Structure formats: C-alpha cells, structure tokens
C-alpha cells in the first residue's frame, strides 16, 4: 500500500493504534520520504515532551467522592421488607384452610397475641416468636380435631416463602426503576 505524505503523517499521529499492515505502510513511506521523516521526528519530540509532563491523575479518593456526591434521590432505594406481611398472610391462609366460621373464631382470639408476636419478631425476639408459633399451631389444631400444628406450620412456611418470592418482583422493580429526569 503506497501512502501519500498526508496519509503517512495522519497515520503517524495514531501510530500506536494502527493495524500492523498500516504501520508497515507508514514505515515504508517514511523510509522513502525525507520530508515526512523530518516531520516524524518533530511528532516524536512533542510526544516525548508530553510523556515527560506525566499523565494527569485525579485525586486518589476521586471515585469515592463521586459516589458520595451522587444525589440521594438517584441512589437505589431499598425496598421495604415485605416478608413479615407475607408471613402474616400465610399464617392466616393456613388457618383458613378449615371451616371459615371456626377459623375466624380461632383467629380472633389469638389475634392480639399474633400482633404482639409480630412486634417482637421485628426486634428479633425469638422466644416470643416461638411462643406465637406454638399458639398458632394450637389454634389450628383445634379446627379439625386433629394435629394441625405441624401441617399448619409447614403450610404457612411454604406459603410465606411463595408470597415472599412473589413480593420480590415489585420490590426489585422498585429498586431498579429508572432514576432522574431525561434531557
């Protein structure tokens, strides 16, 4: 490939990014053209000068500063924890598997305890949570005259997990929704 002087000098500017074939063509032109060879020396001299100047490095903590400066409204927002609600709904659903009238009677009585236990659950009071679980199981077992405690508890766990997974969809959308105005 024979290059003109202009093409060779253009190639010289971006020499490091040229394809091997293009470099060979530039080198061949420089070898044959004293004018371009002189210009090539000037290009190299200026490149050396800037190399000696050193690259412009940002402050060491620059990335941290940028991350801290991102507007709070544009930061991903943590979704509210939905699993306690899912757990409550699942427990109610498990109890509702029996006769509705009996279920309501069974649920109305321990409702206060359930709410108290949920409050305790938020503060990670495991003892209260276990007590609530036993009460819920006992209430469930009275519905059908046979031991619902394990069946109800297991069903509640499965339903709770299912609801939590379903709730994660909207929560994920909330976290990942587009931020900020368009131009």
């Amino acid at each position, binding site marked *: 490939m024979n290059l003109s002087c202009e093409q060779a000098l*253009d190639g010289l500017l971006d020499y490091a990014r*040229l394809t091997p074939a293009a470099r060979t063509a530039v080198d061949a032109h420089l070898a044959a053209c004293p004018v371009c060879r002189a210009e090539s020396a000037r290009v190299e001299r200026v490149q050396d000068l800037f190399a000696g100047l050193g690259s*412009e490095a*940002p402050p060491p903590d620059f990335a941290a500063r940028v*991350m801290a400066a991102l507007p709070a409204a544009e930061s991903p927002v943590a979704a509210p924890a939905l699993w306690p609600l899912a757990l409550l709904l699942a427990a109610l659903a498990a109890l509702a598997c029996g006769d509705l009238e009996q279920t309501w009677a069974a649920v109305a009585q321990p409702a206060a305890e359930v709410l108290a236990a949920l409050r305790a659950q938020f503060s990670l009071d495991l003892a209260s949570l276990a007590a609530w679980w036993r009460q819920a199981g006992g209430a469930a077992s009275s519905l059908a005259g046979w031991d619902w405690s394990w069946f109800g508890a297991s069903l509640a766990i499965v339903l709770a997990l299912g609801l939590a997974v379903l709730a994660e969809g909207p929560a994920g959308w909330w976290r990942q929704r587009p931020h900020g105005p*368009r131009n």
Partner: protein
Amino acid sequence: MQAPDPPPDTSLIRRAAAGEAAAFRELVLTHQQPVYACTRAICGNAADAADAAQEAFIRLHRHLDQVDPDRPLKPYLLRIAANCARDLLARRARQPQPLAELETCVAAVDEATPAAGLLQAERRAALRQLVAALPPTLREVCSLFYLAGCSCREVALALEMSEGAVKVALHRARRRLLEQGAGEWRSLS
C-alpha cells in the same frame, strides 16, 4: 487503517443503569483518568478539574438510561466532561477567584523537592505554561490526545470536531510548541 475501537463497557453500563452502584463505581475507575485529563486541560487547575470531572460523572449517572451500551462510552463521557469544564470556567469567569494562583504556588512547592530535581520541575512547569498559552481548541485537542490518551477519532467525538480538524489542530499545536522552544528542553531530561 486503524485497529478497531476497544470493546464498549456494555455490561457495566447496563448494570449501572439498572441501579448497581458497584458497576457505576467501576465505570468511574475505568474512565476517571481521561476525564480528569480533559477537565484539567480546560480548567487549568487541579481543584476545578476535579470538580468538573465529578460533575461529569454525576451527569452521566443522571442520563445513564440514554446511553447506548453497545457504543464506546469514552467519547460520550469526554464530551460531557468538556462541557462541564467549560460551564465551570464560565461560572468562574463571573466570580473571579484566586484559586489558580494559589495552586500554582502549591504545585511549585510540591515539585521543588530535592529528589524530584529542580530542572525537571521547572521544565514541566514551563511546558504546562506553553500548553496553557495555546488557543483553547489547540490546548483541548493536545491534552486529550497526548495526556488523556485519546485517538484522533475519540478527540473528534469528544470535542464535536471532524477528525481532519483534530489532525490539523495537532499539527498546528506541534508547530507552535516547537517554535516556542519546547523541543530544546528534551536535553534537560
């Protein structure tokens, strides 16, 4: 004739646009050097350059949903950075501050350590002055090309010029620098 552009930051851009902070931080780390070099060239001092570079990344974050993840981010980002730096300069022009002079003094003290070598420090300071004395377009082109490591094509995209105009600007800048004696300093290094 040029080798193809480096692969774009497709995955990082997508993840950052989806709200993943770690991905955006990775983008900042990847591009902070050329962005800072660009703003440094336009602003002329480190403090303003850091502010403008930071603003550039904040603008990028705000408009991530408009970025095409399949195209190189660097030219787009450098264009934002150049605009941020020019905006900041315009604001500074309305409110003159002695920051640049102060920084010159601080830089002189920093560089004048015995180990660094006084000649080297003087040479760098003098070259910086020569580059700063170039007309704005030549200075920006030079800084992006030589200091930010951009190709002619990337400089053209960043400064919204044609590639030919970038090459002409580089040629003029080179001629000016050499005419003003910059080439003689090589022997001092």
